[in-house]
């Protein structure tokens, strides 16, 4: 018994030690503040975990140029967790000065706290497409961080191997291509259908964006004049989902994002629904892949289909009630106008810039980023619609879609579920 207790005590001590390690990050930050004295501190709260290192280097450069401003960069990753953490910060009077916002419905929600940035010098340089999600009554409330584009990433070499010479631009052509791949012994699609966002916000996007007027359609949904059920675009989209399932990997519902990425990167699958953000992850496994984009083809109108989903994943906004508003604006402005800031945005963050004054070179952005950039330049884009959904609709959509993929419901039932979700969650 004595021995048992001793081991137990040791274990407990170990666990306490571990948890102490976990929290040391926080106390470090506080020490930093104490030392800085009268410096003005600007807190940045954001969720892009992949750029944390770059941001921290950038912070050093910025503080060199502006010695009286100190940046405190805090990062909480993953969509929902970020939202909860941000709310907690506001509720506990620890509101950050700069934070990220998804735009549209999310902007409406936080509008009480947002500073009007319309008079900032960079506003005129924004790409038109990036302004819309953060604009309300003609005022601009946020700075788009970057552009992201998604569709089906495909492996050019595997396509060649399967003898696909013409790139599929319509549903039928895509189906034919998938068949050829299968005959060549290659899994056509790597489906990470465990991830709700891959289905519920990105996957569903073409069905919304290919409506004749997406904004009117969404407004119609809110007013009850439009329906998801029976909508032709949604039915075509359901067919596309079925296609990816039929020619996809085993157990798609337990396949997570990383697994699907490695299927694609190790050339076990030829296509995956994904965006240019995946470039660094794919490069980490296999930097020599020859990748390109295919649009998510619904229906047989080639022209309508030859478009990529493009949107602004996050915008930086300034807290209206912050004591250091001016300093926060200085930082945002510095970020997109100084040479150092520009360099970091394209080279370290690998962002597709949302500001026209930043030069984006294909070699900086990687294959995928460059391909998205081409689509943007040619204005062959489908706007990102998910920010206009009612809060939480993306997750619910994903549930309905997963039930469809698992064979628990059919097209009609899935669309009914999605319609019910919208009706239940709309304001």
């Amino acid at each position, binding site marked *: *018994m004595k*021995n*048992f207790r001793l*081991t*137990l005590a040791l*274990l*407990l001590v*170990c*666990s306490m030690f571990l948890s102490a390690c976990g929290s040391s990050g926080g106390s470090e930050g506080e020490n930093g503040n104490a030392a800085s004295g009268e410096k003005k501190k600007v807190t940045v709260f954001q969720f892009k975990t992949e750029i944390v290192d770059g941001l921290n280097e950038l912070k050093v450069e910025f503080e060199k140029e502006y010695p009286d401003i100190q940046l405190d960069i805090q990062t909480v990753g993953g969509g*929902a967790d970020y*939202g*909860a953490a941000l*709310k907690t910060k*506001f*509720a506990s009077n620890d509101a950050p000065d700069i934070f990220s916002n998804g735009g549209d419905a999310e902007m409406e*929600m*936080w509008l*009480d*706290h947002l500073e009007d940035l319309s008079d900032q010098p960079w506003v005129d340089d924004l790409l038109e497409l990036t302004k819309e999600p953060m604009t309300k009554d003609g005022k601009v409330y946020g700075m788009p961080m970057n552009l992201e584009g998604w569709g089906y990433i495909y492996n050019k070499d595997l396509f060649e191997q399967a003898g696909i010479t013409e790139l599929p631009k319509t549903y039928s052509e895509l189906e034919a291509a998938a068949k050829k791949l299968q005959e060549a012994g290659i899994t056509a699609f790597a489906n990470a259908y*465990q991830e*709700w966002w891959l289905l519920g916000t990105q996957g569903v996007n073409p069905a919304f964006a290919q409506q004749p007027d997406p904004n009117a359609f969404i407004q119609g949904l809110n007013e009850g004049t439009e329906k998801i059920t029976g909508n032709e675009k949604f039915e075509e989209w359901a067919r596309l989902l079925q296609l990816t399932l039929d020619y996809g990997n085993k*157990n798609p*519902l*337990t396949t*997570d994002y990383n*697994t699907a990425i490695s299927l694609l990167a190790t050339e076990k699958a030829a296509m995956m629904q994904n965006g240019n953000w995946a470039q660094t992850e794919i490069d980490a496994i296999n930097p020599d892949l020859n990748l390109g984009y295919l649009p998510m083809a619904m229906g047989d109108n080639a022209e309508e289909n030859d478009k990529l989903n493009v949107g602004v994943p996050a915008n930086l906004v300034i807290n209206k009630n912050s004591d250091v508003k001016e300093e926060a604006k200085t930082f945002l402005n510095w970020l997109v106008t100084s040479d150092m800031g520009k360099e970091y945005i394209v080279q370290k963050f690998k962002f597709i810039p949302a500001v026209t004054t930043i030069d984006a070179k294909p070699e900086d952005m990687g294959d995928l980023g460059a391909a998205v950039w081409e689509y943007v330049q040619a204005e062959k884009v489908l706007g990102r619609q998910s920010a206009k959904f*009612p*809060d*939480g609709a993306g*997750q*619910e959509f*994903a*549930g*309905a879609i*997963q*039930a469809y993929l*698992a064979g*628990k419901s059919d097209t009609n039932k899935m669309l009914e579920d999605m319609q019910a979700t919208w009706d*239940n*969650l709309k304001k």
Partner: protein
Amino acid sequence: MNNKRWAGLAQQTVYIGPALLFFAITIIIPFVMGMYYSFTDWNGVSGTVTWVGLDNFKRMFTNDDAFLTSFWFTTKFTIVGVILTNLVGFFLAYFLTKNIKMRNWLRTVFFMPNVIGGLLLGFIWQFIFIKGFATVGEATGIPFFQLPWLGDETTGFWGIIMVFVWQSSGYLMVIYIASITNVSKEVLEAAEIDGASRFQVLRSIIVPLIMPAVTVCLFLAISWSFKMFDLNLSLTKGGPYRSTESLAMNVYDEAFVKNRYGLGTAKSLVFFLVVAAITLVQVRLTKKREVEA
């Protein structure tokens, strides 16, 4: 006399005051605030909070299938979870109070999962279920490992149960061990001399004498499994198609994903009342069965 009373009061303030203060700040005040918010339509952010009376409560029972589904899931989970964790915990304790080699070492091993956080455990097990099981299944062809683990309702449910039992039974085992070692040797010896079989000793002597531990363990297991959130989040995130969404997760989802903070707090209030009622009844029932040696 009066002086003495004052001294007593002062002493109580000094000793209990700080704890009470922290309890109030971290538990009581938020609880009361939560009660207030459950009657409003607050979204968690905006400055305007509108009083909506009982609308939230009406809505969750009449117009919220997901809430009722998650309620049912949690109930099923609690029933299976409570029975399994207690059975496993008890039998581990029963065998680890016998003279077995490496007894202490084994006790530590079984307790260990409890020291690791639930979230971490969940992610480790998610890997085991999805990658590990699939690989074993491919290599051996045993159907059990070839199931789509965590990929449908049934495997999702049992997956969470397995990890939950693995994690919590160690803790219950410690309580049972403490209680079993307290059963007096004389009684056991007497029973043995009278020719009682092992099973009879277990059923008629050990179990009645450790009823206080059963009360505690049932209480813990019920409240743990009702409130289970971390395993749920890390193993299945409520999926696939929201078939494994626990009540706690549904509440979180409502408040922080759908931004209906008022509705979320209303649900959590109902949740609290249900857990409180069930555990109170359980403690009363099992207390009655406690006996003196």
